[in-house]
């Protein structure tokens, strides 16, 4: 009977899994390039990556993209010297892909391996990259096969507020022959640069060009999926919900009720925040609301936890629960779970308004919230089941009796953590 034990780690993992990757990091008209100059065996190679954002990609495709001529142009724009002598670079392999970008457009990722001269011993290598000199974009050069790339070879651009896009067009170092293998091209899925998701799947839905009935239905299904997936990111009161249900003699009906309440609360929360953002933007800076909402939610959760603790410690030795009281706690827990509107839902709402697709946007958000609720409910059910399973084991008896109070304490701690984070 190992299976129940496996459920616990799964539940825990769900609670800490990070959210999906964020939006497009650089401007839609950038041309970004990266060059890695390395020595494999006794030969110099350059591994070049070109990353065109949406607009240059579109323009390039208007003219037709011939990777060979791009590779040749790259070779002529790269000026490498080895021990002071200019090095001839010859493209030997290339790979081309068109990863998806924003608004249903594509970006372009071209990788080229260029072969250079022989390197017999320690030699001074200088690199100067003239390609796309006048264009805005990330420009990076690294020397050496293992030198780290700040952008992971144009797959993941740093988004820190304290960093500017790299603008390195010259570099030099001493390189020596190595035992390293000849550099390879990225292949398959990795070439589509999946780490650099252009925008989250959910927010992409609102921008679809044609909204036929089929597209709408498919989008709603997708929104449901995204909502469910989003629930796996930190927050949304999963801890709280699980703790609550575990502590109470929670039933599937309770879990379902919680789910419905979370859906409703989340949907209303998004709309309310959207209303505030738009209508009151003259008087309130919207971003300043988030800390207050977090604070309110945190305090609410602390309050709920205390209330739950109170009712459970009072009724510890009685088995008839005060149904009215527990209904209220259930409602409160559900509300706290949905109180924090997800930023991506808010983005969808605002984009929907700006694109004048308000009805469609609202439907997407309801579907998203429903998916969110289903996920949370599901996890709640898992917690309930796990608890029942544990209940069967006799040596867990003492622990079991302590569970209601302990779980209430967990709720309080979670609330405190939310409050503290909110004021930080």
């Amino acid at each position, binding site marked *: 009977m190992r299976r129940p034990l496996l459920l616990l780690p799964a539940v825990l993992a769900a609670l800490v899994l990070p959210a999906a990757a964020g939006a497009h*990091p*650089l*401007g*839609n*008209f*950038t041309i970004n390039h990266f060059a890695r100059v390395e020595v494999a065996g006794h030969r110099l190679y350059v591994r070049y990556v070109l990353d065109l954002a*949406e*607009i240059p990609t*579109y*323009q390039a495709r*208007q*003219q037709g993209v011939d990777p060979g001529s791009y590779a040749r142009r790259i070779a002529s724009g790269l000026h490498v010297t080895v021990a002071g002598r200019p090095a001839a670079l010859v493209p030997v392999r290339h790979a081309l892909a068109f990863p998806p970008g*924003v*608004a*249903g*457009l594509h970006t372009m990722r071209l990788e080229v391996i260029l072969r250079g001269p022989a390197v017999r011993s320690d030699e001074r290598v200088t690199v100067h990259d003239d390609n796309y000199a*006048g*264009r*805005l974009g990330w420009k990076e050069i690294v020397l050496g096969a293992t030198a780290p790339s700040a952008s992971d070879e144009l797959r993941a651009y740093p988004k820190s*507020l*304290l*960093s*500017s*896009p790299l603008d390195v067009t010259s570099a030099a170092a001493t390189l020596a022959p190595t035992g390293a293998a000849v550099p390879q091209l990225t292949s398959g899925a990795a070439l589509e640069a999946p780490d650099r998701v252009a*925008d989250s799947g959910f927010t992409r839905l609102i*921008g679809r*060009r044609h909204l036929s009935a089929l597209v709408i239905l498919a989008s709603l299904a997708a929104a449901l999926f995204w909502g469910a997936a989003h629930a796996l990111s930190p927050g949304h009161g999963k801890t709280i919900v699980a703790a609550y249900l575990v502590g109470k003699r929670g039933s599937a009906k309770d879990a379902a009720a919680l789910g419905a309440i979370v859906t409703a609360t989340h949907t209303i929360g998004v709309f309310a925040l959207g209303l505030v953002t738009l209508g009151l*933007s*003259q*008087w309130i*800076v919207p*971003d*300043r609301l988030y800390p207050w909402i977090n604070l309110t939610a945190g305090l609410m959760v*602390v309050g709920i936890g*205390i209330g739950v*603790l*109170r009712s459970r*410690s*009072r009724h*510890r030795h009685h088995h008839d629960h005060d149904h009215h009281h527990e209904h209220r706690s259930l409602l409160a827990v559900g509300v706290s779970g949905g109180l924090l509107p997800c930023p991506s839902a808010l*983005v969808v709402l*605002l*984009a929907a308004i*700006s*694109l*004048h697709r308000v009805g469609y946007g609202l439907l997407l958000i309801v579907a998203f919230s429903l998916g969110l609720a289903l996920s949370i409910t599901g996890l709640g059910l898992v917690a309930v089941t796990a608890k029942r399973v544990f209940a069967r084991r006799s040596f867990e008896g003492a622990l079991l009796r302590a569970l209601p*109070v302990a779980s209430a*304490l967990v709720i*309080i*701690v979670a*609330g*405190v953590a939310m*409050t*503290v984070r909110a*004021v*930080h």
Partner: protein
Amino acid sequence: MTGRLILAGTAAAAAAAVLALGGVWRSSPAAGAGDGLPAAVAAELQKGFAAGDTVAEITGLQAELRADPHNAKALDTLGLAYQQRARETADPTYYTKADGILHEALQLDPHDLIATAGLGQLALSRHQFRHALALGLRAKRISPTTAGVYGVIGDAEVELGRYRQAFAAFDRMNAIKPDVASYARVSYARELLGHTRAAERAMALAASAAVGEREASAWTRAQLGLLLLNSGHAHAARTQLEDALQLDPDYYFALDGMAQVTAGLGHLRTARAYEQRAVAKVPLPQYVGYLGDLDAALGDRAAAQREYALIPVIQRLLAAHGVRNDLDIALFEVDHGIDLPHALVLARRGHAERPSVTGDDVLGWALARNGRCAEALPWARRALRLGTRDPLKLFHLGYAESCVGNRKAARAFYGGALALNPRFSILWAPVARKGLLR
């Protein structure tokens, strides 16, 4: 009994936890303000040294903030420096960075003057004019004696069509501190009122006050050039644009300005070369459309079509970022006869967001081209109510007049447009010339 003890204990523990982690509560204002002051002094002294070298300033401030993330002064200065870099490069990621940094500064002190005004400026860049106005007014409450707040307020009022308030703000701004920012705004106001010579004088003062600041110097000269171009002084305009490009050879704004000037002098090939460089730097819809028009005028229809095809792509991207560019897209569609009913919808939406004379002009033009000339006429007139001597607006009014049958009035306005700049538009100057003959 035990239950109550547990309850009390838990509540106390929770309270204690909140207070113990109470380092997160904001420290008292005095100490908070002093926190970053050594670096703030440094930042203040350093400010002068960054004149013209935004990249160096940014690098220095980033390093300071990595060492001390709560340095409000450095956050303020970096937020502004990021916006300046965005002006210089048109790279929108700098707007995002500026936004984040200035909000961090506001977290440290909600009454931070620079952060509030800086966010107001950012809102303007994003076309959130009402939000910008609110921020500008908030900044004014924080310090009514700082010139910059009136710049934010005035700029927002202009776009919202409230010219009396805007001009009062610009006057106040210059009365507090005459400098490139306030001179340039007074110049714009004079230009809107049709006082072209006076506008040129103010812009020349702005250029003089911009010495030492590379981008501002280039901007003022380019702007002066455009003023001269549209008041019939194409050669003088070219001198100004040449100076601008000497100061900043890759400046997209000057490249586009030079394209307009050389087109105004009749050298379309040279104009196209300049506009290609501008578009390569930053593909704004109006640059791309203009490049397409130059291609078409030079007989390269295929290239023109490629440029035109880019506009809806740009629009989709902007929509995906939640930015509406309705007036520019509407203007493009109306000018090129693309989906005129849709263009009218866009023009109405754009006008709602920007009820300025620009909005009036585009809306009137869209109505006229959709054949609704009687409706178009009042809007076209409204667009000129300040007395602006803008050949394109005059042409649009002439077109609307002609459309309702007022031939004489139409000829007067066509003539007026051509007198200001005989090559005021690749697409429409020929139409105006033909209209004169009717």
